[in-house]
């Protein structure tokens, strides 16, 4: 027993001594004898993101003001409710036809787009809030030239055109195309050749925004510095109440929000005439959808009535 103990202790000493000798000799270790040319890569990535269960609502407005006229003095010809649910990683774009005949926050009943010309962006926001019951956290306002400039500043947009659209001065064939600012604007404004006119135009504007999201996600994933390119291009060409902090968090959220999780739909309604005006009478069926959207910031496609979403072509 004692011999065994001595042998263990001496063996241990010899092992330690041997290791020390090898170390002092400056090499000869097992690791050195087996060269390991392994390239080790590591990656750290963090962008603050919107979080929580509370939905966020932003009213996106496109002014029809011509050059020389301030954006806020024009009519809100393009209107989209953007609802976002950060924790569910879902969003919804809910287009409202510009000719929707509604009670205006500035008084009287008229086309919904005229509220901005009468009282500015806040009056337009108030009008849409009164109509839909949705309370907005922020608004964004842009215009024709601003859209063109912003798109060109990010190098154009890749748009997946769901069906061929004959525009005012050019045709946009079905398929994937990289469009410059002028083309994106042309595609977004076209309505006369569309089966459902203004309803389809609003839907196509949603298509553009979803494709922009996809493109931003791809570019940002490849090169984080693209964040500033997109933020700068956007901020230079909009008026908005969204703080920069929130915009950066929206960018962070976009990493978790593929376009497939963004529902794009347009309000239900029927075209009609009031006097000599062509108007849209919004359907009562919108109320249930707005309640759904207002509750959690998104609407699932399965919950949309078939008539609400015009089928492509």
């Amino acid at each position, binding site marked *: 027993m*004692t*011999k065994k*103990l*001595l042998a263990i*202790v*001496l063996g*241990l*000493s010899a092992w*330690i*001594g041997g290791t*020390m000798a090898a*170390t002092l000799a*400056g*090499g000869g*270790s097992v*690791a*050195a004898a087996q*060269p*390991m*040319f*392994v*390239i*080790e*890569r*590591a*990656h*750290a*990535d*963090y*962008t*603050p993101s919107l979080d929580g269960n509370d939905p966020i609502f932003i009213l996106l407005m496109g002014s029809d003001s011509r050059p020389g006229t301030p954006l806020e003095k024009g009519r809100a010809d393009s209107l989209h409710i953007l609802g976002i649910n950060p924790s569910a990683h879902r969003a919804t774009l809910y287009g409202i036809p510009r000719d929707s005949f509604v009670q205006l926050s500035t008084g009287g009943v008229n086309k919904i787009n005229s509220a901005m010309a009468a009282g500015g962006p806040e009056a337009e926001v108030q009008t849409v809030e009164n109509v839909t019951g949705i309370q907005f956290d922020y608004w964004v306002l842009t215009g024709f030239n601003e859209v063109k*400039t912003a798109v060109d500043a990010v190098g154009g947009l890749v748009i997946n055109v769901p069906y061929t659209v004959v525009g005012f001065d050019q045709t946009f064939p079905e398929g994937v195309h990289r469009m410059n600012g002028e083309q994106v604007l042309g595609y977004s404004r076209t309505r006369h050749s569309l089966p459902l006119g203004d309803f389809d135009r609003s839907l196509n504007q949603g298509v553009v925004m979803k494709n922009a999201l996809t493109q931003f996600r791809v570019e940002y994933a490849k*090169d*984080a*510095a693209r*964040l*500033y*390119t997109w*933020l*700068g291009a956007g*901020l*230079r*060409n909009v008026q908005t109440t969204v703080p*920069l902090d929130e915009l*950066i968090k929206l960018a*962070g959220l976009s990493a978790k929000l593929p376009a497939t999780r963004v529902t794009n739909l347009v309000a239900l309604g029927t075209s009609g005439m009031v006097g000599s005006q062509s108007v849209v009478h919004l359907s009562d069926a919108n109320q249930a959808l707005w309640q759904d959207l207002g509750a959690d910031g998104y609407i699932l496609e399965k919950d949309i009535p078939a008539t609400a979403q015009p089928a492509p072509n």
Partner: protein
Amino acid sequence: MARRRIIVGVVIAAIVIVALFLLLGGKDSPIGSIIPNNEPPPPEFAFNHKHVTSGFEATVAKVDKDKQLKTAKQITPAVQTAVTSLLQTGYVDPDTWGDAGAIDDLFTGTAKDQVEPNVDTLTLGSTAADTYESLDPSASANHLKVIAMTDGNANAIRAMATFDFTGKATQSDGGVAKVTVTGTLFFVPDGNDWKIEAFRVQREIKPMQPKSSATTATASSSESP
């Protein structure tokens, strides 16, 4: 008699083991704090000034570009200091490899909470000292580009730094590895300083092939999340 020899042997062996522990336990050994440390201090990293550039991203449409660029150039030294500090503390100084506490003052907001989970990329790593003894930064293979996000009054409201950094890490066994760190850091102003609010950093460690074993070496690749 034999029993006495055994006891003496055990005592001697124990003394040998304790002595070896004290001598080979490195700078953290009890004796390490008594014997003066003759190790040279870590090198000081600095970006080559020829490789530091400035630019701006305006948030309003009509701006005086010269004023905006002037602002960008004014904030560049402060941002450069923060990036340099991250690389010096996280990569060049062996004493702070893997030490989240040593770099987290450079971060702010929710990004501060992300330092610890990402410490193995934001520094050479928490186990780097097991493999490497030192890291010598390249004097020339480094670049820094600072972009100021500017408002209509040419105030810098945010900043972004893209950088690359290369160094040579010396392994404990005498081997050498090339360490490359690239990244984009997003900053917010904090008094006179700039703090990191978002980051994307990539690190690559590539063992440099000894000339003598060039014909027998094999290459492979691994990636950690």
